[in-house]
């Protein structure tokens, strides 16, 4: 960028990013209220199920995995993009990650927190959920570590722990910046949270070394967690599940849905908090994007996220095609039967919904101007989120409802308890996300400063000479 153009300064970055914090408008409070109400509806539904027994859920034997597992996989998938953006793109030194990674990581944490509720809800006796973890006990009972469900417990809890550490470590210098701009009780609170961080040479040296290792650890987790989730299905001898295709198929789907959710969440924030304005005070829309890379979260970031969705959506579409083709080519009547059932059976609308939202709708992003149009970005990203929920429902419900024995075929439809808990999970997720926006910097201050040209005496002297 030419030196005559306006530039962001370190001070401006701190000010801009901290500005939305603590300031609760009526609209914000209303949104928190809606999230809390939705969350409490979900809570009530869970209470209903806990007190009446798991029979209150709409399971239809032999379909014992329904909306809960669908929603569990959905939220784990949502949690994927955050770590992909923060860790994988960090190792690749991708610059567009900087603006969006903090909020994406928060999305990951809250997504996995939401997902973590569902195994407990699904097993019915939630108060016994700790039996999932290995702990010494007087009966010397241990889990079966050869079970993919046990792998999943380890995979998800490791993913949550590593993501939470990575998230918190990234926040420390920014929490210190908040501390230094506050007084009184809030100052003490943030001082504690920042662990007394002062950005000394010693601290930064070890911090950057450790951050690289955290990123290196988190990177294989992005691939492993959803692979392990996919083995929950693929290891079972259930038609429509038992496939080696599942791990890459699930990982691509998770990144696809996660990136779409990042767009859905960050686009309104970027507009409301004016994070898509360049240092010249102009919004970096597709019409004038001269300073696009200087905006905190602008068209450049959404364009990159949309490209990521195009790539992973393409892999997903290919996977849909391959699994159906292999089903037909295998000449196995049970295998092809389930795929035929998905297309032409009672769940056909789920299948078509999935295909439209995940395979067709994102295609509009091949056109550059539509990748940079906020309206199109918002609509398509929401469609992808809907489509990805239906994809998991399509995989789970149809396969269990239509297994080997025709006498056991059934039609599973979720009841109000399951749907209530599913909808409540969105309230729970948004409740935490909304709180996060106001109590933590949603963009990484220190890392954005790394993108800004540092203040140099030599620059000033050159400017004065001109």
């Amino acid at each position: 960028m030419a030196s005559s153009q306006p530039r962001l300064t370190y001070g401006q970055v701190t000010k801009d990013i901290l500005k939305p914090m603590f300031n609760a408008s009526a609209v914000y409070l209303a949104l928190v209220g809606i999230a809390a109400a939705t969350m409490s509806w979900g809570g009530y539904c869970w209470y209903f199920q806990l007190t009446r027994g798991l029979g209150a859920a709409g399971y239809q034997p032999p379909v014992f995995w329904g909306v809960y597992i669908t929603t569990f996989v959905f939220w784990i998938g949502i949690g994927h993009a955050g770590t992909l953006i923060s860790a994988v793109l960090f190792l690749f030194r991708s610059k567009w990650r900087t603006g969006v990674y903090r909020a994406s990581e928060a999305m990951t944490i809250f997504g996995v927190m939401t997902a973590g509720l569902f195994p407990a809800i699904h097993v019915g006796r939630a108060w016994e959920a700790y039996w999932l973890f290995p702990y010494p006990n007087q009966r010397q009972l241990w889990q079966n570590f050869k079970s993919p469900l046990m792998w999943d417990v380890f995979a998800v809890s490791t993913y949550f722990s590593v993501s939470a550490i990575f998230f918190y470590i990234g926040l420390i210098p920014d929490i210190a910046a908040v501390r230094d701009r506050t007084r009184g009780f809030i100052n003490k609170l943030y001082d504690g949270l920042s662990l007394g961080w002062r950005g000394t040479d010693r601290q930064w040296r070890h911090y950057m070394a450790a951050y690289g290792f955290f990123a290196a650890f988190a990177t294989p987790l992005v691939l492993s967690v959803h692979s392990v989730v996919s083995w929950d299905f693929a290891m079972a001898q259930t038609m429509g599940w038992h496939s080696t295709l599942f791990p890459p198929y699930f990982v691509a789907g998770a990144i696809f849905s996660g990136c779409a959710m990042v767009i859905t969440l960050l686009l309104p924030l970027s507009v409301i908090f004016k994070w898509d304005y360049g240092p010249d005070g102009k919004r970096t829309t597709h019409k004038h994007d001269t300073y696009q890379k200087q905006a905190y979260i602008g068209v450049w970031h959404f364009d990159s996220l949309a490209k990521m969705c195009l790539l992973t959506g393409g892999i997903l579409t290919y996977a849909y095609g391959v699994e159906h083709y292999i089903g037909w080519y295998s000449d196995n009547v049970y295998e092809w039967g389930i795929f035929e059932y998905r297309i032409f059976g009672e769940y056909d609308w789920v299948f078509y919904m999935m295909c439209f939202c995940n395979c067709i709708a994102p295609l509009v992003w091949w056109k550059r101007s539509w990748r940079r149009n906020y309206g199109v970005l918002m609509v398509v990203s929401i469609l992808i989120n809907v489509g990805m929920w239906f994809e998991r429902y399509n995989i789970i419900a149809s396969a269990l409802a239509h297994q080997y024995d025709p006498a056991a075929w059934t039609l599973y439809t979720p009841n109000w308890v399951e749907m209530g808990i599913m909808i409540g999970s969105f309230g729970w997720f948004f409740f935490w996300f909304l709180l996060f926006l106001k109590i933590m910097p949603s963009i990484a201050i220190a890392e954005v400063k790394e993108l800004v040209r540092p203040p140099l005496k030599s620059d000033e002297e050159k400017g004065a000479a001109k």
Partner: protein
Amino acid sequence: MNAVFYENKVQKGTVKSVFEHLDTLVNAIDEIKKAKLGHDMIVTAPLPRHDLEHVIYEGHAPSPIRWFTLTGALFGGIMGFALQSITHLNWAMVIPAGKPLVSIPAFLVITFESTVLWGCLFTLFGLVLMCRLPASNLQVEVKDPRLSDDKFGFVINSLKSSEATKVMEILRKYEPLELINGNDQERPPQVIIPLDERGFEPNETDTDMLLKVGIMTTIIVILSIIGVRSYFDNTLADQLKDQGYNYKTKAVAPSYRNVK
């Protein structure tokens, strides 16, 4: 007033400087090091800069964090595999159709997860240890709010009076924004950092935000539960009763929807 107040105290034997420009700071550090006066110095920056690290730690070995990481990863990998093997050998009832009790392919997943988890936890431990966190006992000179915003700090400690004078001379050449010799400082001046019109400083109503959100959430949750319960009692329960079923006295099994 909408501002943060900072008492700019500098101890005896210490020189504190605040720089606005990165290049002048790098040059100043270089010259102080060459003059062999930088044996006890602290440089603070609002962001990590490789040029600063290079000039300060030139010739030093890389951060030892990597040894914590390696140790943790090895510990985690061994522990993960051992946990699975020992428990399966300990409780041999889980014999899946004559397959081996200690199955390497099946145990690799949790071994991997354990490697990552413990590698990460040890790295965290190493970070806390090496950075000496929580760093509440750091010297007062670096606790300057400007240094997390847009200024760089350069503090040199353990200086004799003559050394401090020499350090002052060198640093003055690089035109720092502020240069204080602790030996000369009688009364620390107060630095006032004004915050802009909205600033970031949370005002009185803003700081109540969490309280507002908490109270509102509690009210909404209680009202929702009351509302949902009354809705249930008046409608869904009636429907169930019409089917000859009293949900209050009997557990719902297997599916209350099928109870006729």
